[in-house]
């Protein structure tokens, strides 16, 4: 499925960012490979070799051909980010309140796990381990030996390699067999520095058998400084376990975010993903769901709202490696002004993966002639008894419907919002936690109402709005 680029790079052809990554590793090699778990150390070396030879992906690479990310490789980012020390509660830097939704909040600041010293790695009464990946690798070496770098190859591509070689910190979650974690775990990642940073952070989430976890992965900005975030998350979902992943992306217009997630699913496991890309300069979400045990089920959904010259890229890979699995993908987006987007949906069905059900749909509304979306399904099917379908649409706001609503007395702006909101609601209605769904929908409404265009670098706060948006549409009744 993944063709690797084996072109050799010489020092002179490195772009600035590639050169910085390579030299940063060379400078810090002892620290990066010496003080960590052997599995991490081995991965780092392999990643570095790949980077030295192949660098970051360029547009000749099929999977990056329309991406604006390679255009940034000549920009300067600080890679050697000094550790942050916990000196004030996260709430003082950034507030996130979802009314009626109870999550245990954890945070990362500038790529470092942000907590008091004693809370760097905690174990709950039920044996759930949550904390910094740096600490976890030494306390749980057997888990790292078994899972780290197993779902994603260190040399998958340039960004995977850069992340593996250079990550400073990240979040680690371990849910033992039979434990259903009641409260959602929320990771809030912030960048708060005055100079442009490139942050590589690495998360590892392991769910044992018959367990359950809901995880919120929030990327937020607190200032207007440009940054380049390269996050990689590996998730192992054990037999008959259930994992719900919510990604909420609300970044300033000068931030580039690569948020890649690689998931391994065992037999009868269930994975539900919901990605809400609300704002951000450039966002790329790669999601790899590997269905490795029979009866596994995956439901991947996304909403994106882009305007100005923002860019969104969703790359979804579903790997049906074994029979009797089910996958569903639904991505919907609205692109306004000069925004651009990419959706690539890969479905791979292995030769023996009979009785596979795989569905994929991507619908887009372009608000202006200058907004663009490239949407492309890639289906590779080697089994003969499967049900697969895909569909993509690119359209404009339905003028007929707009007039119909106005003829009933609804103002043009309200009619427009109602239509867009209704278009996206098919996805948001799949958020099963009601309080979270209400919050999602509220943020979408505010985004659609142009709350972000008041100042061009602002981001929405996830907290309770001062005056909630009254929008008379109740999707539970549809």
């Amino acid at each position, binding site marked *: 499925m993944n063709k690797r680029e084996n072109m050799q790079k010489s020092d002179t052809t490195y772009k600035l960012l590639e050169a910085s990554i390579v030299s940063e590793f060379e400078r810090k090699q002892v620290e990066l490979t010496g003080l960590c778990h052997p599995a991490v150390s081995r991965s780092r070396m392999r990643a570095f070799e790949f980077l030295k030879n192949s660098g970051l992906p360029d547009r000749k690479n099929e999977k990056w051909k329309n991406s604006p990310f390679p255009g940034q490789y000549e920009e300067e980012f600080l890679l050697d980010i000094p550790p942050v020390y916990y000196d004030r509660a996260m709430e003082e830097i950034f507030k996130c309140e979802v009314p009626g939704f109870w999550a245990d909040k954890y945070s990362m600041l500038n790529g470092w796990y942000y907590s008091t010293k004693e809370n760097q790695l905690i174990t709950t009464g039920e044996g759930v381990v949550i904390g910094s990946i740096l600490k976890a690798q030494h306390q749980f070496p057997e888990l790292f030996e078994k899972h780290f770098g197993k779902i994603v190859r260190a040399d998958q591509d340039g960004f995977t390699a850069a992340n593996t070689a250079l990550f400073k910190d990240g979040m680690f979650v371990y849910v033992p067999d039979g434990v259903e974690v009641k409260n959602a775990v929320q990771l809030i990642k912030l960048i708060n520095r005055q100079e442009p940073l490139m942050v590589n952070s690495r998360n590892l989430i392991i769910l044992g058998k018959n367990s359950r976890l809901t995880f919120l992965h929030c990327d937020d900005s607190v200032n207007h400084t440009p940054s380049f975030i390269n996050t990689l998350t590996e998730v192992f979902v054990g037999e008959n376990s259930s994992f719900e992943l919510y990604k909420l992306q609300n970044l300033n217009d000068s931030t580039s975010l690569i948020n890649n997630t690689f998931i391994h699913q065992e037999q009868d496991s269930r994975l539900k993903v919901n990605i809400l890309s609300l704002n951000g300069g450039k966002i790329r979400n790669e999601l790899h769901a590997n269905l490795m045990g029979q009866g596994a089920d995956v439901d991947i959904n996304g909403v994106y709202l882009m305007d100005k010259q923002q860019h969104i890229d969703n790359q979804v890979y579903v790997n049906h490696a074994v029979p009797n699995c089910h996958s569903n993908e639904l991505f919907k987006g609205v692109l306004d002004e000069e925004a651009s987007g990419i959706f690539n949906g890969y479905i791979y069905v292995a030769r023996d993966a009979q009785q596979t059900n795989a569905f994929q749909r991507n619908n887009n509304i372009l608000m202006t002639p200058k907004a663009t979306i490239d949407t492309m399904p890639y289906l590779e099917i080697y089994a003969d008894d499967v049900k697969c379908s895909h569909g993509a649409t690119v359209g404009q706001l*339905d*003028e*007929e*419907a707009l*007039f*119909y*609503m*106005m*003829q*009933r*007395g*609804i*103002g*043009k702006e*309200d*009619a427009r919002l*109602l*239509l867009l*909101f*209704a*278009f996206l*609601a*098919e996805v948001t209605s799949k958020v099963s936690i009601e309080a979270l769904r209400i919050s999602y929908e509220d943020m979408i409404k505010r985004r659609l109402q142009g709350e972000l265009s008041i100042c061009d670098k602002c981001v929405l706060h996830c907290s309770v709005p001062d005056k909630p948006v009254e929008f*008379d*549409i*109740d*999707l539970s*009744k*549809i």
Partner: protein
Amino acid sequence: MLLNIKNLHVAINGKEILKGLDLSVNKGEVHAIMGPNGTGKSTLAAAITGREGYEITQGEIVYNGEVINNMAPDVRANRGIFLSFQYPVEIPGVSMTNFMRTAINAQREFNGLAPIPAGEFLKKMEKMKKLVDINTKLTKRSVNEGFSGGEKKKNEIFQMAMLEPKLAILDETDSGLDIDALKVVARGVNELRSDENAFVVITHYQRLLDYIVPDFVHVMYDGQIVKSGGKGLALELEDKGYDWIIDQVDE
């Protein structure tokens, strides 16, 4: 006078469709507009309701004493102009109930009223659903989505009943209806008829006019009203077709 259209010329993409149309409608009246295909009947409905792309090049539409040529469609609607669409639009994701509540509240806001209380709204819904024989399942669905042709037309009359317009234009509401649905639609209209409102019924066939009895019948041809009369004119048309009128005009 509720509606007074004077020498109305309307063009679509520069092509003139209405070529000097005059029509006056008083409160309490029902006007039928008939005529062959392509004579501008639906264009007239679009011009009165303010649809984009229908350019008024000459003349004026006066509604309730005010020229509305350049008024936005939603403002016209809130002042009491309603169109029952020939082809009702499907709006996926917006439930009928919420669509209706949004529309009613838009109208109330326009009239300086507070949003409709939930109880009052539901009561009204129930009453009007009975009037046009609409199933509760339909109002829970998205607007017109998956509705049959007949259900869509009934739904238009349902919306009309909910919004209580002063001027209702029914654009071929009878097309695609079987006789039972036609009776239901007509019953709805007749129930809503009063001295305070008026109806403009656009139709091809006399059939609907057996149930919605007009005070005036107008025949449109080539962008104008070429003949007007009482309800007897419709029967004459049913009998003799349009050719004799067209011949008169062409002479």
